[in-house]
């Protein structure tokens, strides 16, 4: 049984909707605001990172009226707006999706850190009796997936997966499994993450975030020999996954077929860092794709999760090289420099890569040896037959998805 993608909903610092995503990928430069303007400043802290990519005010309005969002955390709002957008893009009406045949599988790296922080502030400042039930409800990590289901009446399985940078890909993979195993006829699957002041401060203290360089410009660059750090961002990216026969039966626009899923773990990683398990990860990827009859030399684009974390980017590149072995890597893109590190922008980008959107050359790379790569002079053009979506997380989890063009 074949699972296809029939809709996409995206929101991010770049705005909302596919055209906004296309534009930021074409420019290659993220849409950012100062930490102050992004609402991420935190009293008593002077982080080194100076810019972040946050969703513009009112960007969600076409899909989520403020009145309906009353009890939603920022993360829930992003997740719901992205889902409504995805359903509409798939040509489905709310009556079509309500019921037990539609599932949700949402990845989130952080959950609602803003609400968690506020709740802990209440605990600290005014005591346990002052804790707000409305805040608490939304600090539960599955609140966002629950809000999607509540808004759209989705009674199928409701999964929330959190596994650092692999959250979105793993959620999509689990969504595919739900359709393949007959647990759902369609799944809204993807990622949602909000940016918050406490998150910015913590990530910055870890040295994870990009900061202004010698010329005062802050830019996250993937695969560099010199680490840049990542761009803090927020957003949501949701795919509508469906059983292919059902999708074709209703005349849906089939954007991609999910050909293969691979999941593996690098047990040399610590809880907060990447490890050195490129050989094992690469061998797992290769072996699984061979077992699934999806040879690596049939892949013509790779969309990587690399975002500017030196060890992570290096591990991912070495893993891909270990998997491909003697076969040269196809054109390799790292869209997070434009879409930001969190919020699933890379899931939206992967679909667009299959369809041949023109991206800035700075987002495409040619691999060197030793875990680094250089941006190319000329970006590849035109659609691809097969795209490998790659996610290698700190902590060790990795997930790859092969998408195939399906306009037959």
């Amino acid at each position, binding site marked *: 049984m074949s699972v296809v993608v029939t809709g996409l909903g995206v929101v991010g610092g770049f705005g909302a909707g596919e055209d906004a995503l296309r534009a930021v990928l074409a420019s290659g430069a993220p849409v950012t605001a100062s930490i102050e303007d992004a609402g991420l400043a935190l009293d008593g802290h002077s982080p080194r990172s100076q810019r972040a990519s946050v969703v513009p005010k009112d960007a969600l309005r076409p899909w989520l009226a403020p009145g309906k969002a009353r009890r939603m955390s920022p993360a829930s709002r992003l997740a719901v707006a992205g889902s409504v957008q995805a359903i509409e893009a798939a040509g489905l009406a709310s009556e079509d999706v309500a019921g037990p045949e539609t599932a949700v599988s949402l990845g989130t790296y952080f959950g609602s850190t803003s609400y968690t922080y506020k709740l802990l502030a209440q605990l600290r400042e005014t005591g346990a009796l002052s804790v707000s039930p409305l805040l608490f409800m939304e600090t539960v990590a599955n609140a966002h997936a629950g809000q999607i289901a509540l808004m*759209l009446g989705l009674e199928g399985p409701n999964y929330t997966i959190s596994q650092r940078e692999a959250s979105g890909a793993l959620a999509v993979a689990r969504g595919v*499994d739900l359709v393949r195993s007959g647990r759902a006829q369609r799944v809204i699957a993807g990622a949602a993450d909000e940016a918050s002041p406490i998150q910015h401060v913590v990530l910055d203290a870890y040295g994870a975030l990009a900061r202004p360089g010698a010329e005062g410009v802050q830019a996250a660059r993937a695969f560099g020999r010199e680490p840049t750090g990542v761009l803090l961002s927020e957003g949501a990216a949701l795919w509508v996954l469906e059983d292919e026969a059902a999708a074709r039966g209703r005349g849906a626009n089939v954007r991609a077929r999910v050909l293969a899923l691979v999941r593996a773990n690098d047990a040399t990683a610590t809880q907060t860092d990447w490890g050195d398990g490129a050989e094992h990860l690469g061998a797992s990827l290769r072996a699984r794709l061979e077992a699934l009859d999806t040879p690596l030399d049939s892949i013509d684009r790779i969309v990587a999760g690399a975002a500017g974390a030196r060890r992570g980017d290096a591990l991912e590149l070495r893993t891909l090289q270990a998997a491909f072995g003697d076969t040269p890597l196809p054109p390799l893109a790292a869209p997070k420099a434009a879409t930001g590190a969190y919020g699933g922008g890379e899931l939206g980008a992967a679909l667009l890569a299959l369809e041949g959107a023109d991206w800035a050359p700075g987002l495409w790379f040619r691999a060197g040896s030793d875990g680094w790569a250089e941006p190319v002079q000329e970006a590849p053009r035109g659609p691809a037959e097969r795209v490998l979506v790659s996610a290698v997380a700190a902590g060790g989890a990795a997930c790859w998805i092969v998408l195939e063009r399906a306009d037959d």
Partner: protein
Amino acid sequence: MPEIVITGLGAVSPYGVGVAALWEGLLRGETAIAPLDLFDTSGHRTRIGGQVPEAPRGLERERDAAGRAERLSRTDRFAIDAAREALADAGFAQDAPELRRAGLFFGSSTGGMFEAERVLLADPTSALARRFSHVGGQVICAPAIALARDLALGGPVETVTSACSASTMALEAALMSLESGEVELAIAGGADALCELTYSGFNSLRAIDERPARPFRADREGLSIGEGSGMLVLETAAHARARGATVLAVLAGAGSSCDAYHMTAPHPEGKGAIQALERALGAADRGAVAFVNAHGTGTPHNDVAEAQALRAVLGERLADVAVTSTKGAVGHLLGACGALEAVVTVRGLVEGVVPQTPGDGPVDPEAGVALVLGAPARPAPCAAALSTNLAFGGANAALHLRAAGTEGA
């Protein structure tokens, strides 16, 4: 599709470390819910819960098998202890080569939040400046990462965070990956530790009872929060046979659903729970179900909604099916409860024994379930059982387990 079996069990609970401590505690019928001393409860609405005795209270430096230092949280510790027990129970050495391809499907609701909140509840500015690792390292998936590292697992690793159904759904995810052939061996379960975030949060919803929870009783007034871990080893029946493993039970089915009704209250007729149960049972003979390990939190709403769901699925037979809940004994382990309750259910099938629910007081006639009281039940035959969990956000999940020896049934 291959049959999937359970070959190892591990647990950490308020009765102590190990499945034996848990099982014996349950059969003694005395609740482990008692005044907490993990944190100061004097400012909270309630004072009691299910606390794991003698467990570390802060990040502990540990050297792993390869001699590398790690900082383990309370939750990490629970998960590792339970998983090691489960692997040993299944007959695997800790460095067994099969672990290289095994998957880990893990559920938690707050990961290492207890340690993270210690920092954030202290003076925030100076504390944050010094102890970021306590905050940043304690994401929800941190225990799964620590566990995968401890066991050198190289297959799929996935943390499901669907609140009270998290580890039940982790078991469902494991079942899917085993049935599809992605893995032949999986470790699945969950862990959660007490923390003031969830303790004060559930209290703000007035969901916690001042007294130990009394699931399905007429005088129930709310839940008790607990902590711990349940871990299970799952494999294909063929894989188990090939290595001569003892099969403890068959994971015959798992199902999940969403109420899509309300963010905290369950559907009053248990509509989503019915769905999860029906999906777990599939076409199996409902008449073979000998007992149910209910979610049974002890809140006025949950228990009656759940009873309705059980009645809808089991029909008239419900009166003959023993119903138990561990939540009056160990509390509600949040993300870990599904797995811990699965451990108890499997043990129940192995022994043909269903633990009683502690305490006295009449069963709520509106619930109308055959609650196990006073002494353990010994249903005969004891061929199959159900375990249910109904979570916040309406995420429901259920497991259908069959006794060993029914393989191929």
